[in-house]
């Protein structure tokens, strides 16, 4: 009855020295779903994500992508399947133009003999189209330097890049932690738009209030264990806040 999960992890455990970072955690995300992964600092959110993206191997447990068992030996393997992670620093280069950032490493070129020349017009047009499609109204030209953009708009470049280059799963690490309320609202809008276009999103945050408005499901980690996994229809914001505050009594 349930659809095949896009990504599923079963019984993931990970220990660093004497510290048990994760203990038998099950986690899954469906196609076109937004999952909020919440928990305090040290709850195991980053460790789980790093395992799902191939940064670390798990000590125990299995990972399935679209129903097939996968073993990631490096982040490249995960990326090849369409799992993109956007970290807080966003991998954007301030002094470069928006379009050049957008296409960095995957530039559009026209060949002049042996010389590959950048097709700036095509790169700028595509970037503007993707960003406007995500809902950025203030963009003047993709030829402008990234440093003129606000924090939220920078997130949009990272999200748009993922969308454009055909990823299936976007993992956002604390995308709103450094943003104002208005900027946070914008980013939530981009995330919903990305979902509407077929992407699944894992939204990692320690601030439940940021993810609750857009999430389909909230997964709560605490001390390396999953203490809650609730569809939004099943749980009010208050239930989840209580769950985080008092530890998982499964609401």
């Amino acid at each position, binding site marked *: 009855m349930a659809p095949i999960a896009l990504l599923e992890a079963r019984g993931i455990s990970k220990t660093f020295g004497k510290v048990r970072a994760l203990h038998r955690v099950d986690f899954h995300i469906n196609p076109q779903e937004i999952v909020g992964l919440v928990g305090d600092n040290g709850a195991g959110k980053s460790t789980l994500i790093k395992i799902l993206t191939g940064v670390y191997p798990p000590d125990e447990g299995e990972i399935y992508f679209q129903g097939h068992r996968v073993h990631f030996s490096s982040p490249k393997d995960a990326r090849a399947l369409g799992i993109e992670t956007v970290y807080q620093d966003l991998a954007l280069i301030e002094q470069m133009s928006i379009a050049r950032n957008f296409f*960095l490493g995957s*530039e559009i070129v026209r060949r002049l003999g042996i010389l590959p020349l950048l097709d700036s017009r095509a790169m700028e047009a595509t970037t503007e189209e993707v960003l406007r499609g995500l809902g950025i109204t203030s963009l003047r030209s993709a030829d402008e330097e990234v440093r003129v953009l606000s924090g939220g708009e920078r997130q949009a470049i990272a999200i748009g890049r993922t969308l454009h280059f055909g990823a299936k799963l976007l993992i956002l690490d604390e995308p709103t932690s450094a943003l104002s309320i208005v900027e946070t609202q914008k980013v939530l809008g981009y995330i919903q738009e990305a979902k509407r276009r077929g992407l699944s999103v894992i939204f990692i945050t320690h601030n439940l209030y940021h993810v609750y408005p857009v999430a389909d499901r909230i997964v709560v980690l605490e001390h390396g264990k999953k203490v809650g996994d609730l569809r939004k229809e099943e749980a009010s914001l208050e239930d989840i806040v209580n769950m985080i505050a008092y530890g998982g009594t499964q609401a």
Partner: protein
Amino acid sequence: MTKSAEIKQVAPPARKRDLWRRALGAREVGVLIALVAVIGVFSVLNRNFLTVDTFGDILTQAAELGIAAVGVTFLMIAGEFDLSVGSNFAVAGVMLALLTTRLGWSPFLSIPLVLAAATSVGFLNGVITLGTRIPSFITTLGTMMFWRGIALAITGGWPIYVLGSSRMLDLLGGMAIYQTVRISALWWLIITLIFWLLLVRTPYGNWTFATGGKPEAARALGVPVGRVKLTNFALAGMLAGFAGFTQFGRMGSMSPVWGDGLPLEAIAAAVIGGTSLMGGAGTILGTVLGAITMASIRVGLIMVGAPSYWYTAFLGAVIVVAVILNVRLGEMMTWRR
């Protein structure tokens, strides 16, 4: 529907402001102001300064520096330095002089061979720097001394003279192509155009900016950061060697002590022209204007009869003023937003 209408209404004034912002924000404005000021001062002091002949002299003076500075600019944008370009310049010039005069080798063999050697010297700087993770400012300080020593050792410290003229020397730098403009200025122009194209119009140029701007981000997006740096070290070496050839061609002799001020002058030309010392930003046009500014000062001071020591003092002042202008204009650009 209403949304797109709104955007259309806003667009025209934004475009107009864009033009202003772009004109003011262009990295070359600082150096352009410095150049105009320098030319202005010398034109007032000596009426002959503003002539075609003088401009030819300036271009000739600027060419060798300019050629080496193009490579240094690339490397600085990628976030690295090369202090050994002056020594590489001397070794290349001396080697070409030795091979073609003492050993009687053909220029067709010697030029590619020595150019390959100069490229390897640059490449080696890169290998040492990236392999040891020691800042290139230090590694190339070492290779600067090492290769200068080699140049002195193979010549015994004496310049190598070529008796009479040769076609090779003419083509490398000796020949005048228009009044006082030498062919070295043409080489400089060609090299500038090629490297400008490489920097602003190719993925490689994009990667160079990204490598110097934020290496971790570049790497995360699949840019081969190490290879980009290595290539730029090699290019800086190659252009330093070629600059040595033009000097040899222009003077008809090559001394192992020449080019000792070149590394810092090349960095100065780049920085006056708006290239960042931190990497990630810079333009070839800016460096060209920087080299012309420096050569104008040199030629201008000679024409007004100032003792040559003043060159260094004047240059120092211009560097500081140009960099202040660059920084201030950069800030203004951000405020305008």
